[in-house]
Every structure is written in structure tokens, then in C-alpha cells.
């Protein structure tokens, strides 16, 4: 369990960075994990156009488990103050690691504290928890920067895992 819940994750969970909703913002999205009902409202503020725009702020109000809360917190550290192009590269690297079923460790130079979530990728039921905030950021960034910049068709809110009867 210590491998799954690394100290970095527990720290971010207890003391989430950049939490709370702030003004001004350019786009606000609301994403839900239909499996467990966890949700996040996330705002993005960009400065500039297209992929060269700078991510000025990411603020959020989230309800969720330690994995989703910590992952969102780590994500804000990684993308705020970065050019959108870099933020999306980080997001791509993190997503690839999370969906690898433990096969890809992730590059610490790119995803920083995000590598703490490598253990989570071995638990398929928790991957969506870790991606909730990231996908919300991607969705919001697309809305601001324009659909041609990135694709938003990987929204986590599109899947469900109901109790079959």
C-alpha cells in the first residue's frame, strides 16, 4: 500500500496546492467520474494565443478520493506558469504512464511529482481517479485555445462502471 499511496500523494491530499476557485478565468469545466460520483469544477486562465499561450492559473473545487485530489494538486504545480505546449506535453506523458498498467514509470524530468502515481496505474479501477483533474484541465484549455490545438475526446466523463443487474 505504501507503494500505491506514496508520501507525496498523501502530502498533496492533506495539503492540496492551488485549491479553490479563483477569478479571473477564461474557461470553467465540470467533470464527473461516473463510477464513483467524484467531481471537479476547474478554471483555466491563459495569457496569449494557441500553444504559445502561458498557463496563468488553474483553480479548482473538487470532491474525491486521495488519489484524485493529490493528482489534481500535482497537476497544477506542473502546468501553472508553463507554455500551453509544455503543459500538454506533461499531460501526455502523465496520461501515457497512467494507462500503461504499470509498464511505464514516467519521466521525472517531465512529470515531476507525477511519477508518484506510477503505482496507481497498476490498479485499473483507480486510473480514472488520477486522471480526473488532468482531463478537466485539458478540456478547459481546449475551450480557451481552440479545438484545433488539442483533442478533447478523451474526457473521463464518458465512461461508466455500473453495478450490473
Amino acid at each position: 500500500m505504501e507503494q500505491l499511496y506514496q508520501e507525496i500523494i498523501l502530502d498533496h491530499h492533506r495539503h492540496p496546492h492551488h485549491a479553490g476557485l479563483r477569478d479571473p478565468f477564461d474557461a470553467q469545466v465540470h467533470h464527473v467520474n461516473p463510477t464513483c460520483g467524484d467531481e471537479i469544477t476547474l478554471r483555466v486562465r491563459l495569457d496569449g494565443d494557441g500553444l504559445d499561450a502561458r498557463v496563468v492559473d488553474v483553480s479548482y473545487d473538487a470532491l474525491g478520493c486521495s488519489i484524485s485530489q493529490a493528482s489534481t494538486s500535482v497537476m497544477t504545480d506542473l502546468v501553472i506558469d508553463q507554455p500551453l505546449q509544455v503543459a500538454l506535453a506533461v499531460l501526455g506523458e502523465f496520461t501515457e504512464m497512467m494507462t500503461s498498467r504499470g509498464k511505464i514509470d514516467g519521466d521525472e524530468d517531465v512529470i515531476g511529482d507525477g511519477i508518484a502515481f506510477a503505482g496507481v496505474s497498476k490498479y485499473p479501477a483507480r486510473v480514472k481517479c488520477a486522471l480526473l483533474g488532468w482531463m478537466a484541465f485539458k478540456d478547459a484549455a481546449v475551450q480557451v485555445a481552440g479545438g484545433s490545438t488539442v483533442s478533447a475526446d478523451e474526457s473521463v466523463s464518458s465512461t461508466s462502471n455500473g453495478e450490473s443487474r
Partner: protein
Amino acid sequence: MTTLQTAISAEPAAHLTVADLSVDIAAIRADFPILQRTVRDGKPLVYLDSGATSQRPIPVIDAEQEFVTTHNAAVHRGAHQLAEEATDHYESARERIAAFVGVPNPDELIFTKNATEGINLVAYSLGNASYSPSASRFRLGPGDEVVVTEMEHHANLIPWQELCRRTGATLKWIQMGDDFRLDLNNLDEVITERAKVVAFTHQSNVLGTVNPVAELVAAANRVGALTVLDACQSVPHSPVDFKALDVDFAVFSGHKMLGPSGVGGLYGRFELLSAMPPFLTGGSMIEQVFIDHATYALPPARFEAGVPMTSQAVGLGAAVDYLSQLGMDAVAAYEHSLVDVALQELSAIDGVRIIGPTENVNRGGAVSFVVDGVHAHDVGQILDDEGVAVRVGHHCAWPLHRRFGIAATVRASVAVYNTPDEIRVLAGAVRKAQQFFGTR
């Protein structure tokens, strides 16, 4: 095959010792091979997720295998020997399953994929009545009402939302009190002359609450509304008699009652079924077919279009035989004693709040709870690491969770093969989760 000790009673947990139960429970557990396995680095499996799906005993597995290896053929087609044998097995299963739920006439029991399909069958058939002149008595439209409850599983909610959307009828619901039971104080205001359908669960899959079926049926009957009972969580765990309950329709799922997945049952009064339009259409549900129209067979065939699941139905027949040999009164009494232990053990943990009645009266074997300061998903992860399989989330009852302002709960749900010791392992694992996340 084993039987439960008749001495097992519904006495409070304080009077119940493992020694009273161990011999028979050990024999029952030996019938379920999966319970012998370990999970997560050698931890004995503690399976407390039977509310989602139950495990299968050897006689069920054997019945399916025996059918497939010796009698398999498409039922109700063909005149060869295998077709005869397969049809006999299929219809014998129908008879035994119907009898198990108090239905003497097997033609009133329709095989469905599961309870969800059974409810959709009723909802779509009622919707199809709009296009069937001969079924105008079932027609719904603007001004009509469908009544559900706030504690329904999505399976007994969304089909009715959709029926209302298609027909213009209005959806209403019976609210819950803070005691986790239906608030029946204003029942006559909710179930009025406008009500055409009253659909409700027998036993909540989250709270464990057993609903007062007689009172709800009486209210529906006063205004001539059809009643639809979701018996998914009651049929596997207690004696249930649909005729005695006097409901018009009832559904249950095979995989929650020690049977295979892919098979369930819909009970309906023959008089209603034989007047209702079909849901799925195609082969074997017909009487006569012409190039431009067709007439339909009587129930149950009318509602079983296409070659049905067969080995699954045979397996479910074996499951009800198994449960009948244990005796549903004994099963219910034993599971009641497990719930006693669960309520006692979980209530004793500071920071644990049970979401459901804490008094073990009119209460079944789903025990849901929240742990202060630890999200249900995180509790479930620690439990899983200890070998304890529970369900976390909203358990397909999101409106229920909204009602109590909770995003997600942990649900332990028992079956006849669980032991008091397993409940204690659960409680220990919950304490471990609190320690891990530093709330205790």
C-alpha cells in the same frame, strides 16, 4: 450439499458464537471453490460483495456443465432428441424458479438477461401500448404519473424516466426520512388517481432497508396503478412469495442468487402479460406471421424472442434447488445474524457512520458506511489490500446518495457463505484504513 443448522437463530450477535456455526458454514463454504482462493499476495479472500454478484456453488457449476456436455440444443425448436431434452431442462428450470418465488404457474415467469432487462421489458411494453390499439388500457400520456422511490437502483429509475420522456407522463417519487426508510406520511399525495405505475425496491441495495410492500401495494391498488417490485436484493436472501406480496410485476437476477450471470426472471400476472404488447420481437415469440404483420404467442413465449440463454437458466434452476435445500428461512436467519455482527462491529469504530438502519429490523444484508476523513475509494483500496472485497461508490443509487449529501459509500454485503469472522476481518481492515490515512 449441506444444510444450515436449524439451531441458528436471529438472536443478537452477543449470543452467537463461531462455534455454533462453524461446522455447517465450513461445509457450505466448501461448496464454493472460489472462497478457497487468496488475493493480493496471499490474503484469504473475504468476499463481501454479494450484493453486486454472488459466488456459485459446485452444484450450479456442475448443472451448467452437465447441460452443455450432454443436452445442449436450441430450445423450443427442432424435433430431435437433444432439442427435446434441452427444452425439458429449460422448462423444468422455469417451473422450479417460479415455485421458488411463490409462483405456481410457470407461464407467469419470463426469463430475461437480468433484472434490468425485466424492468425495461415492462417499461417498453407499456410504452409500446401507445401504438397498440388492443393494449390501450396500458397507455400512458401527459397527465399520467409513474411513481418510484428515492432509494431506487438506477435500474428501477432510468427505465421509468425514459418511459415518462417518451410518453409525456410525469415521474414522481416517494422520499426518504432521515431514518433511511421511506417516508409514507404523505403517500396518498404521491400516489394519486393519476398514478399508472408504482415501481419500488423490496430491499435497498445500499441501505439494506426492507420496504413495506403491503402498504405500497395497497396504496397503488386504491388508485388502480400497476406495481413493479425490484426483488433483486430480497429473493437471494429471504423467502419471497410474489403471489403473497400481491404485486403485478417483480424482477430478480440470477447472478445475485448463487446462479449464473446472463439470466434473470420477470414475474407478471398472466392476465396482464397476455394483454401487453411485446418488447423485443422476432423468432419464437410469434403465433402467426405474414409478410406485413404478425400475431403473438401467449406468455411467456411472447416475451422471449430469439433463442434464449439455456445453460444459464439450467444453472439458475440448480441455484434455487441449492437455496431451497438450505431453506430460505434458515438462510435469512443466518444472514440476519451476520448483519447483527456487522452493525455491532462497525458501530464500535469511532469515525464510522452507517448509512442505513442501525436497528436490525426490516433490514437486509447490505451494510453501507462512510469513514470520516477517508474517501470510500481509499477505504476500499486498503480493504482490498487486506483481502476484503467490498463495493465502493454510489452503487448505482446516485439519487439516494445525493439525498444524504454523500458522494460515495463503502458497502459490505453478505451471503449465506460468509462468516462472523469475515465481518471481524472487515472491521479490522476499516481500522487499518483509518490508521493509514491518519484519522485515528
